């Protein structure tokens, strides 16, 4: 029987880390460890001697792992090598999903591929969640700023709420901009004018 793969997930956000670990468990019986702390990251990873390290492609700590990928001398077991020595398509898919993987030299592709595929699927899901969250936040921000802009208009022009909103919407349409942008400009201008 094959030895379990030791997979290290470097991820400071506990929810994301759990979600990634869960995705990986679906890909086989692996030993999964999560590192959330950036302090002494290189040493922690080196001590664990993982077969695979997974990390968000935009995580600044990646540059620390890059060093590990090269630090292994001829006498040492290579800590990690880049995944893409073997499979260019897999690398590309991983990069597009926003994931980077460091893989121990000599790990068989048939053992690696299911792990990377599962990680890619999970990162795609997380990417989508993140985009939805950002959209919700932006909508909420827009609503707040539109409320403030309405108040400015109501006070300055002595009009009602519905009329103020209609004015904002018409201006936005005329200028081909989002209503939130127009509202932001109005609130900024009102602030400058001390109103």
């Amino acid at each position, binding site marked *: 029987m094959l030895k379990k793969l030791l997979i290290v997930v470097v991820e400071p956000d506990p929810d994301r880390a759990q979600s990634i670990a869960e995705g990986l468990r679906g890909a086989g019986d692996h030993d999964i460890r999560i590192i959330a702390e*950036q*302090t*002494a990251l*290189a040493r922690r990873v080196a001590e664990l001697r993982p077969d695979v390290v997974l990390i968000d*492609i*935009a*995580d*600044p*700590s*990646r*540059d*620390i*792992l*890059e*060093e590990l990928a*090269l630090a292994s001398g001829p006498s040492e077991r290579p800590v990690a090598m*880049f*995944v*893409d*020595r073997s499979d*260019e398509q897999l*690398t*590309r898919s991983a*990069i*597009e999903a926003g994931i*980077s993987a460091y893989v121990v030299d000599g790990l068989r592709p048939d053992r690696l591929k299911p792990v990377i595929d599962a990680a890619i699927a999970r990162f795609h899901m997380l990417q989508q969640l993140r985009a939805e969250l950002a959209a919700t936040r932006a909508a909420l921000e827009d609503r707040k700023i539109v409320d403030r802009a309405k108040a400015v208009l109501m006070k300055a022009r002595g009009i009602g709420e519905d009329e103020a909103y209609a004015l904002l919407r018409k201006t936005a349409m005329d200028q081909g901009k989002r209503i939130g942008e127009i509202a932001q400009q109005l609130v900024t201008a009102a602030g400058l004018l001390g109103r």
Partner: protein
Amino acid sequence: MITLRLGYIPLIDAAPLIVAHELGFAAEEGLQLQLVRLGAWAQSRDLLGAGLIDAAHMLVPLPVGQALGLGPALPVLDLVMFLSHGGQAVAVSRAIEDQLRAVGHDFDFADARRAGLALRRVVAGRLRVGVPFMFSTQLELIHHWLSACGFTPSDLDIRTVPPPMMAGALAAAEIDAFCVGEPWASFAVEHGIAALLLPGTAIWSAPPEKGLVLRHDFVEDRPEQSGALMRAIWRASRWLDEPDHCGTAAEIISRKDYLDLPSELAERGLTGRLTILSDGETRDVPGFLAFNGGAASFPWKSVAALFAASIARQHGRAEAPAMQAAMARFRTDLYRQHLRPAGAALPGASLRVEGAIAEDRTVPAERGQMILRADGFFDGFTFEPPAGPASTN
């Protein structure tokens, strides 16, 4: 309008890309730039290799490491111009600052030998130094400077620390010193964590820091777009070199979409007027950061060879083939082709003895004359590049 996606790391030397976009230099060339803020140098390299960005603001030694086969197997990357020289500072912890004062060091922020020897006197064990990436001008500067001041390889522990984490690592005593690009050295001083010991230019007067890097197939298949991008950025860098523009530049690059830091912090590096100690003491460093003047943007093949030789030694590779491989990736031919029409001064040769110019010097150019920036090392080191197939153009 052609849209190009440009990756950058939030540092003040990303200014040529940001200014090319914000002040319309790109639009004049028919380009719409989408600037993509990135978190790691490895991310920049990977996105560029995978074609998710078209060009990147990158550490000059990074494509050299890639050319030496020391990175992932990605498509070939070419460096077409330098974006900046200098902009780095060496910082030490407050504890080392006190020790240096105790042996009479006066923090002149200029004399690299005196600073290095003082450091040699006060450091007992290994000196742990943070650098932003293992292929970086910062690492090369630290290596060169401390080796010349009596530190042996076993006296040094050089570690990668991402720039935004540099101050934190120093505060947590994970490192004793660091060399980093602005604004992160000033940031550490501002938070009372570090004292600045030297500017990078005190070690090497013109250390090439960032370059514009594209995929080889992109520059070959899309010469018009590559040329337009190079000219837009070259004009932006010429605009940035005007001292009167520092304030505006600092304000633009500090915006929330870009560096998202107080513009006063960015202005320090752009003007070369740095606060070096937490008591507010400042030093003026002429030429601390240069973008364009003195042929700063010309991507000398001899610089490729110098970095390649050093990286090859550090990683146990043969130097001669490493130098040839790296020189082939510094595209002086494209620089000449695309920037000649913009009026850039072009040197007669594409490689030179590095470190040989003690003071700014006027030399013959392709047409007329041009001024070359002083590029001396503090210890008089010079580097003679090899001849060979990759050294022409």
